[in-house]
């Protein structure tokens, strides 16, 4: 495989060349990619009508389709119940057996990760914008809409414009109380919400190579907020170890060439970097958390959840700070693990006791307060400290409500003090 003028290829270019079976590939080229994995959540219900209108009779490969219920678990409105019903009926008709229904549920991206549905070299698409998270497996993983998904279910492929790639090298050591979330927030402050629109982002460098898979999931997850088509990390031993016992189909590990052509390269040194926070009303409105903490921003709600940061490592990180403390009077602290298995792990480790004894609400696994459509809605003049990924106007309900995005540790520190707090002060 080669790129422009015989140059080497970026990771995204290699995966798309594999998916489309072309020998030479350059940014801007339109390719037809064969899909390795298609994922639907509730928005998949809107896939059913166009699928039938297209005249399709059978899903191209039921073994390559995953459905996960995650936004309304269990259904909180009649509308949500109808969406779930449509999906169950479609799954039964089409023999889609990889259905993570209520009781076996989790946030769709976490389900894909912990069950090994996306592996190195894959082209994966999902009906949720944060499908980018799975790029941490060394795959191209992109969000699409439901009509597009109907075509994927019918044909097993979709057209893609080969994106130019931005390479991000991270070097340095994460300080105490500084996390992968702070790294991606810092990067958002630089790249901004439009900086990677239609582009691939390839993360690497010594720090990224040392990150665990859950940390890589967090970083790739918020590549979505940069506008990117995909965010990726080249697979290495950490990837293979994570997938060793769970990979659902064969891996095709690919690595970027040394002479790959990047549209832009960003080098970030995180030595001495403090925790970061994205202030209202954009994920790229990023400031050092200690500066915001000086302004004594009082909060009404704290949320430890979402596909970005609700894995067992995130919840443990929060629990370590909360031990022996109480949630501040007047603060509602919502904790929502990213999957049922993480919920069970919390139960086994005594973390549900720890959080509820401190005055938190520990919910079952779902997208929860992240998207303003189910629970944890804010009043117009309220403020939320959140480990999630978006803080646009109206994200958690009314347009005036203010959301600050930060690491799980910072969310817990803020829940204890009742105002936005640097977690390092409590370590």
């Amino acid at each position, binding site marked *: 495989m080669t790129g422009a003028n015989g140059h080497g290829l970026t990771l995204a270019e290699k995966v798309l060349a594999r998916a489309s079976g072309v020998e030479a590939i350059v940014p801007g080229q339109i390719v037809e990619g064969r899909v390795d994995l298609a994922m639907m959540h509730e928005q998949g219900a809107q896939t059913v009508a166009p699928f039938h209108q297209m005249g399709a009779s059978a899903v191209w490969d039921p073994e390559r389709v995953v459905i996960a219920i995650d936004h309304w678990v269990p259904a909180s409105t009649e509308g949500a119940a109808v969406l779930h019903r449509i999906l169950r009926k479609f799954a039964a008709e089409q023999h889609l057996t990889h259905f993570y229904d209520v009781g076996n549920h989790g946030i769709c991206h976490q389900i894909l990760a912990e069950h090994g549905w996306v592996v190195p070299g894959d082209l994966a698409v999902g009906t949720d914008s944060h499908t980018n998270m799975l790029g941490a497996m060394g795959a191209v993983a992109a969000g699409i809409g439901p009509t597009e998904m109907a075509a994927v279910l019918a044909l097993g492929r979709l057209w893609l414009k080969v994106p130019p790639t931005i390479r991000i090298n991270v070097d340095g050591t994460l300080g105490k109380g500084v996390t992968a979330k702070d790294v991606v927030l810092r990067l958002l402050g630089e790249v901004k919400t439009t900086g990677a629109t239609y582009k691939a982002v390839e993360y690497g460098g010594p720090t990224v190579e040392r990150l665990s898979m859950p940390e890589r999931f967090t970083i790739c997850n918020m590549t979505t907020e940069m*506008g990117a088509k995909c965010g990726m990390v080249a697979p290495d031993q950490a990837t293979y170890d994570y997938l060793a016992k769970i990979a659902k189909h064969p891996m095709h590990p690919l690595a970027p060439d040394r002479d790959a052509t990047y549209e832009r390269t960003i080098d970030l040194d995180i030595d001495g970097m403090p925790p970061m926070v994205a202030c209202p009303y954009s994920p790229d409105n990023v400031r050092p958390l200690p500066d915001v903490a000086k302004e004594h921003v009082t909060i009404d709600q704290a949320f430890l959840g979402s596909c970005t940061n609700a894995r067992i490592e995130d919840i443990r990180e929060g629990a370590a700070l909360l031990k022996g403390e109480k949630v501040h009077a007047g603060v509602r602290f919502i904790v929502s693990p990213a999957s049922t298995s993480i919920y069970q792990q919390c139960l086994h480790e005594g973390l549900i006791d720890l959080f509820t004894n401190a005055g938190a609400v520990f919910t079952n696994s779902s997208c929860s307060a992240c998207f*303003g459509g189910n629970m944890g809605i804010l009043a117009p003049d309220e403020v939320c400290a959140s480990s999630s990924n978006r803080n646009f106007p109206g994200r958690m309900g009314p*347009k005036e409500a203010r959301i600050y995005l930060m690491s799980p540790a910072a969310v817990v520190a803020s829940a204890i003090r009742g105002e936005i707090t640097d977690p390092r002060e409590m370590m």
Partner: protein
Amino acid sequence: MQNVIEGRVWTLGRDVDTDQIIGGKYLTVIDPNELKKHVFEIALPEFAAAAKAGDIVVADENFGSGSSREHAPQALRAIGVGAIVADSFARIFFRNAINLGLPAIEVRGVRALFETGDTARIDMSAGTVTNVRTGRSVHFPPLPHHLLDLLEAGGLVEKVRRELAARPTPTP
């Protein structure tokens, strides 16, 4: 899709994300005629009641960023919006709009040419957007063939329907 699209303009700023187009509380609504009552509730509250079929939305950079929700272009299509023209689009919104047969046209510098209430005239083959009131216009590169094909077909459903219909019927 018509080659020339002309209509009354509604202007919007930059970074109008999907939450501002159609909020999270409406995500369980799948009837486009219900969705259209709530379109731009946050970004442009007067729009839903006053917008008419054929109107054109003119936005600044990064229109439709955020979620993959197709509710956003569906609601605009249900109103009968003739086209959405923006300095730039977020990628999933752009694909969703084209897939629904709703022209989404990226035109650098277009937002600065218009005020709400102006009339825009879009010439697809010439690649121009003109403000009929001021006479000022701006060029855009023609859409790639496969996107024009999609719009010509009226969207992805019809395009795939034709492709599947053309397949030989399997013999038992």
